[in-house]
């Protein structure tokens, strides 16, 4: 499962991705500020893996997914799919958006807002294959096949409208629609957050089965660490638009290298009253991404922060195989008292 990322099996890579949203200009003087939603992230996705992205609201995880899906134009940086730059012409060594979206599809959190209420679910699923050149009968056949794959009997459900389905069934339809073009990569943006627990488990199992059956790669965005732990091969932790830690799921959950990751893990409620905590692992809310703190962006909430943290933005430092964290405590000679000495 945890194969190394080599150029040969890299499906998607993200290089120096930045997305700033300008604020409205103030009435007098001063240049308008920007929301630094995503502020310089790099990572690669290997074929067949599931990469989980976690972080609090406003950390840029959804913006990242929209950038990868090319629903949002980046301020800087590029997305490379199968070695081809997304959005440029084939003559320039790229892949057009039309071809790209045939291979990369997305499932959103809100299952009813993402379906057209005036189309039957078979029409919704058959829509994209129709656009991409299948004739009507063939597209409908594909829709029925996909409905069957997600566990909804086409004979019973194909002609229904979204409002006639439960939340879990609607999310299955969204998954079927995403898979109708036979994509290689599926971006799942909080796909189970709006579902009840018993339905959540059904959908997670379904996603696991479909991944096996169609040989999919998943980018799984969630704020629920238990869910991410369950489904992911690797985990990426974001804070205020930047990557603070990335690595194999077992390493991250057993030996988190960044104080923020530790705090996130410790914030999970316990089922057993015997393990109740008396102090919260983190105080306050995440700071505003308009004016992020200097140096390490987490330092204002970090109990291990020291003077060097406000001067030096910590680079991602390798902690183990494929495991990196951006904290000065891991960087030799960073000036933080907990940092290892510089190896001779």
């Amino acid at each position: 499962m945890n194969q190394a990322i080599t150029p040969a099996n890299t499906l998607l890579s993200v290089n120096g991705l930045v997305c700033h949203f300008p604020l409205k200009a103030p009435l007098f003087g001063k240049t308008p500020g920007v929301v630094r939603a995503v502020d310089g992230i790099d990572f690669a996705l290997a074929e067949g893996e599931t990469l989980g992205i976690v972080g609090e609201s406003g950390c840029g995880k959804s913006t990242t997914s929209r950038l990868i899906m090319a629903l949002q134009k980046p301020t800087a940086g590029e997305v490379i799919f199968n070695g081809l730059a997304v959005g440029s012409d084939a003559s320039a060594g790229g892949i057009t958006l039309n071809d790209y979206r045939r291979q990369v599809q997305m499932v959103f959190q809100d299952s009813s807002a993402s379906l057209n209420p005036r189309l039957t679910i078979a029409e919704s699923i058959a829509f994209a294959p129709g656009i991409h050149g299948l004739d009507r009968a063939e597209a409908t056949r594909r829709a029925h096949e996909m409905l069957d794959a997600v566990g909804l009997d086409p004979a019973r459900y194909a002609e229904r409208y979204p409002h006639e389905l439960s939340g879990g069934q609607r999310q299955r339809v969204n998954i079927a629609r995403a898979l109708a073009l036979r994509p290689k990569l599926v971006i799942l943006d909080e796909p189970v957050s709006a579902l009840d627990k018993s339905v959540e488990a059904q959908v997670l199992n379904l996603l696991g089965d479909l991944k096996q059956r169609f040989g999919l790669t998943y980018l799984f965005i969630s704020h629920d660490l238990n869910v991410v732990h369950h489904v992911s091969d690797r985990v990426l932790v974001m804070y205020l638009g930047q990557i603070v830690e990335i690595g194999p799921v077992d390493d991250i959950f057993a030996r988190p290298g960044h104080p923020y990751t530790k705090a996130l893990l410790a914030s999970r409620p316990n089922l057993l009253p015997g393990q109740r905590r008396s102090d919260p692992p983190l105080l306050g809310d995440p700071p505003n991404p308009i004016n992020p703190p200097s140096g390490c962006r987490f330092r204002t909430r970090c109990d291990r922060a020291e003077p060097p943290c406000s001067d030096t933005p910590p680079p991602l430092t390798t902690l183990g195989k494929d495991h990196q964290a951006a904290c000065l405590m891991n960087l030799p000679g960073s000036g933080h008292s907990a940092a290892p000495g510089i190896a001779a």
Partner: protein
Amino acid sequence: MSLVSVRDLTVTFVGRDRTVHAVGGVDFDLAEREVLCILGESGSGKSVTLRALMALNPAKTTRVTGSITVDGHDIVAASPRQLENIRGGVVSMIFQEPMTALDPVFTIGQQIGETIIRHEGVSRATARARALDLLELVQIPSAKRRLDAYPHELSGGLRQRAMIAIALSCKPRLLLADEPTTALDATVQIQVLLLLRRLQQELGMGVIFVTHDLGVAGEIADRVAVMYAGRFVEEGPVAELMTKPLHPYAQGLLGATVHGDKRGEPLTTIPGSPPALDQPSTGCAFAPRCDVAIPACLEGVPLLSRHGDRAARCIRVAA
């Protein structure tokens, strides 16, 4: 005497097109200083039960039967005038979404003060001083400045704390909480849960906490009641219910909860989905989804049978 006593509560919503039997017979007691969590999925009737305790369900379309007593007050028979005094003074509620529960055109200080002035008839200046104390009680940093802030100027966590301050402003005996941490980030959720637990102990309140999240129940509850299709199907002390659930639905819910230690294995699921509540059920409402159901399950609604301090509504547990 217990703080809350609910007997055979049913809540029915009568609409033009359909009638929904949202709560179909709920009985429970809450002792002073006790925290009860009502755990259930959407549509199970947990929020409707909670609102019935404050008579907040829409009066025109709601039919309530049974009895509800809170701190000696009969809620079902109370007049609108009496309810005004009970709400806020004896029992108050915090909601899931503070942005919609707070009034956007008044400052936090005004909204807290309004409640104190209405119930205690104090002056505006006294109310403002009390509001400041309350903001400090709920650990809002730079409370003095926040008193004059409007809801949109606060972060989600601070808004939720401000709503807790309003709810506590007249020292209620009973606090009702309807998923107050669901919309918050994990790091903020645990802060608010710990705050609520501390306040509950310091102020000696009874709390009824509605949630769909087993982890939240584990952090805050003394006792847990699991609700399904409008009825309690299991009830008991939190530790025992979390480790050895009796009812097949509670077992399924715990099995379906994702832990990291089941990584890579398929999760236990409960097949199907909850029943529509247009008709009151004549048998066990969970039987169609239950893998240990027998024909006798459909012959009548099983009773909530007691086993020491635990109870379950299942004929197979009673046996």
